[in-house]
């Protein structure tokens, strides 16, 4: 009886989840597919293939994939040592570092790239500070520079996942190894690395997908060095005359295929290498805290990382935002705070943009967390086909370039037969953000829930805990850190989302991101940069507050 009702509840929940996902995510993507074969008012099955046959596209596709692979390597080099340092040395005790390390990720990519360009270009800030560097700066405007910019933007994402996994591994297993006399590298290779693999695979996949779906850096930096990727091509077909949704949607399907392949490999890896790490005994930090030289080296590493990931772009952003005349450059008499005054005056368009950005992101991240947690719990360890479908569908928005998803949503919600008219309302904006960013919560919660040992629930049942009680007292506390991470991620990314917002915001409504973009378009670079500082500053402040609340209430997994 009991297991029967349990099963029926599960089945019912899966069906409902599939239904919601279908309406929200799958149907818009199908609309995209229909657009790719439905040209000039008639069905043309060969159209996508004709587009693909167009030479040069393969080159662009390979360019995207190569970039994705290189950025995985780049982020790994940055994030893995960092995650280790933060779990195994005293540096990890500085809680504020966790928030500071999110800043690169919260910086909109096109702003970050802009910062790097302003810093490194001819007559840029670096040459103004150290004229001798003018020999070196041209080397930055190459593929390597692009890879560096994107890795510096995305590494916090991998770092969070790896750190979470390392913390769940806890100290005891490594200690056991140490007791048996295993040296550090051996312990890492035989104990930590295998346990880390599932989280790393997940992170690497998301990094790959984020890289090849990224638009900001290719649009600013990539254009500069002539490196073309799929997103820039898709964007070209969608936003410049003549508009060609057919070509854009075909290219998107190609991109989608690559991402799905990636997802498949990752899910195989993760099913094979997922271990139950959170057992009944509770975990504690390792006693093998590093001391002496190792701590100093770690500190230097963290310091250098902060300088290049935050110091350089923000130096440029701050400099540009406080410059009276951009043609004059760095000079004390060229310094002003007027742009901030102009920006933060109550009732101005900039202030309204900031406010609407905040409340839309708050609403979207809250809905996304609720939905995402639900999906993640339905997915569990994706044993059955339907669970795997939920997994696949809920991650789709992360595997499709934002702009493609958004076009699909517009096609669907603005269709004449649609009974609910969401298009051109705030509801549409929130819906779009929720759909675009729900994969984050799914990933975080899945990662947290996936490593809880079933024995915990059995223990709860043995002691007579009812299902909801077990959920509330065992499951929920263990997944709350994941939910919180998902919420934070969604909020920060939603508050800087650009490509979708450009297409979906109702007329007269601006968010901080579209405001910045508009200022760049209008030649008010300084004003745009000032807005970037204010909005990133605000999200950082908010995260600091949440972090301090979080550390007072320890959710010890």
């Amino acid at each position, binding site marked *: 009886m009991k297991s029967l009702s349990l099963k029926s509840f599960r089945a019912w929940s899966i069906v409902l989840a599939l239904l919601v996902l279908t309406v929200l995510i799958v149907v818009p993507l199908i609309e995209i597919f229909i657009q790719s074969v439905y040209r000039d008012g008639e069905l043309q099955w060969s159209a996508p293939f004709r587009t693909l046959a167009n030479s040069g596209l393969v080159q662009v596709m390979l360019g995207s994939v190569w970039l994705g692979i290189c950025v995985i390597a780049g982020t790994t080099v940055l994030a893995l040592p960092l995650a280790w340092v933060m779990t195994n040395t005293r540096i990890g005790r500085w809680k504020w570092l966790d928030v500071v390390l999110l800043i690169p990720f919260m910086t909109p990519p096109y702003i970050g790239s802009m910062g790097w360009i302003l810093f490194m270009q001819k007559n840029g800030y670096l040459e103004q500070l150290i004229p001798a560097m003018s020999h070196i700066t041209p080397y930055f405007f190459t593929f390597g520079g692009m890879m560096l910019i994107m890795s510096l933007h995305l590494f916090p994402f991998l770092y969070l996942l790896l750190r979470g996994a390392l913390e769940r591994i806890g100290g005891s297993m490594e200690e056991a190894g140490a007791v048996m006399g295993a040296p550090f590298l051996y312990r890492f290779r035989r104990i930590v690395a295998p346990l880390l693999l599932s989280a790393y695979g997940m992170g690497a996949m998301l990094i790959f997908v984020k890289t090849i779906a990224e638009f900001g850096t290719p649009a600013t930096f990539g254009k500069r060095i002539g490196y073309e990727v799929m997103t820039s091509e898709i964007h070209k077909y*969608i936003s*410049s*005359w003549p508009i060609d949704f057919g070509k854009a949607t075909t290219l998107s399907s190609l991109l989608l295929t690559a991402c799905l392949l990636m997802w498949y490999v990752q899910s195989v890896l993760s099913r094979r290498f997922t271990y139950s790490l959170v057992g009944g005994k509770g975990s504690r930090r390792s006693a093998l805290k590093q001391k002496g030289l190792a701590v100093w080296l770690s500190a230097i590493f963290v310091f250098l990382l902060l300088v290049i990931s935050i110091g350089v772009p923000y130096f440029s952003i701050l400099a540009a935002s406080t410059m009276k005349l951009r*043609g004059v450059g760095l000079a004390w008499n060229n310094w002003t705070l007027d742009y901030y005054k102009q920006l933060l005056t109550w009732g101005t368009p900039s202030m309204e943009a900031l406010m609407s950005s905040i409340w839309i992101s708050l609403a979207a991240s809250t809905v996304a967390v609720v939905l995402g947690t639900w999906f993640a719990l339905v997915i569990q360890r994706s044993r059955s086909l339907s669970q795997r479908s939920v997994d696949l569908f809920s991650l789709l928005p992360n595997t499709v370039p934002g702009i493609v998803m958004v076009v699909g949503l517009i096609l669907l919600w603005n269709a004449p037969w649609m009974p609910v008219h969401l298009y051109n309302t705030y*509801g*549409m904006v929130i819906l779009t953000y929720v759909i675009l960013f729900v994969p984050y919560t799914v990933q975080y919660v899945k990662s947290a829930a996936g490593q809880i040992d079933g024995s915990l629930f059995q223990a709860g049942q043995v002691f007579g805990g009812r299902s909801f009680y077990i959920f509330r007292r065992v499951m929920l506390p263990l997944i709350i850190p994941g939910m919180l991470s998902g919420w934070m991620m969604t909020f920060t990314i939603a508050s800087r989302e650009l490509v979708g917002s450009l*297409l979906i*915001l109702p007329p007269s409504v601006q968010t901080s991101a579209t405001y910045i973009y508009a200022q760049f378009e209008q030649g008010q670079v300084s004003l745009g940069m000032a807005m970037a500082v204010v909005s990133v500053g605000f999200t950082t402040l908010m995260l600091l507050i949440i972090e301090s609340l979080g550390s007072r209430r320890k959710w010890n997994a």
Partner: protein
Amino acid sequence: MLNTTQTRTTFKWGKGAALALALTFGMALAGCGNNAGSNAAANAAAASNGGNNASSNTAAASASASTDTDSSSNTTAASTDKKLTVYSAGPEGLATKLIEGYEAKTGVKVEMFQGTTGKILARMEAEKSNPVADVVILASLPSAQGLKDEGLTLPYPEAVNADKLNPDWSDADGNYFSTSASALGIAYNTKLVKTPPTSWEDLTKPEFKDQVNIPDPSLSGSALDFMTGYLSVKGDSGWSLFENFKKNGVAMAGANQEALDPVITGAKGVVAAAVDYMTYSSKAKGEPVDIVYPKDGTVISPRPAAILKSTQHEANAKAFIDYLLSDEAQKMVTDAYLLPGRTDIKADNRANLDEIPQFKVDWDYMNKNGADITEKFTQMFK
């Protein structure tokens, strides 16, 4: 076994919670959409009427729309139809001022979407099945001709002051009105370039090697106007200029402002086919930039405004066009360093039309060949 029933009730609760969750989500969205839902209903109702009386008599159309949708409220046409949606390309400050001026004059509430010509056209394409915009202001004449050819524009030949507009830039049947224009020139950094170029060919000289930016014609309607205009005069032999540009390291760099910005900061020296009003306003701020118009001629890029046939607010849209052509609005245009659309108004802060050497361009050719030229040019400069 011990507590089967209890378990079941909890699961029922769980079931309910899941349902409640889904419902809340749905309702929250519906709540957000509510307002628009009713608007859309109003629009749909108006559309069903509007289709029948394309032959004007807009007051009746809007009146019937208002009675259909909201019979309880005051049913005079003027009091219910106080809305207008404008999609505008070009300087944001100007667009905002124009809209504020129009709102103050008519009491109509204007919703505005601001973007480049490409973005506006893309948005219109996305909204094709459910159009939102009433009036569009674009930065490229061929695009407006394209809209007209597709039958998307609503003619308004009786617009006030339309006869004073430059006839070369506007549609004789009143499908679009170029209420302002920008001339394309060579913008340069005054610190880096001591002897400014005087012709397009000058930019192929060694002294400008790797110094020149040119806007991307797929993003900048005005840059495309330059290329198509130049080729319409020179024929296919005109491509040699662009080939020589490429040989001399000319870089294609985004839309107009993205091309100009590196010149302001000194990373590059020159923008070929720069929109003049942006350069003038940067210069007025004190930035080290200036602009020259090549002696051999250049292209003027008119900025057409058009009413869309799908409009639900025809009377307001027409009043908006009238406003754009008024003395007041034309003054705002010149204040933004643009060329006024009306021939009887002069700007005192910039070169006027008669001071700019012009090519005798063929707008029909430009309209027809825009896509091919964009393609060829962007391939060449990749």
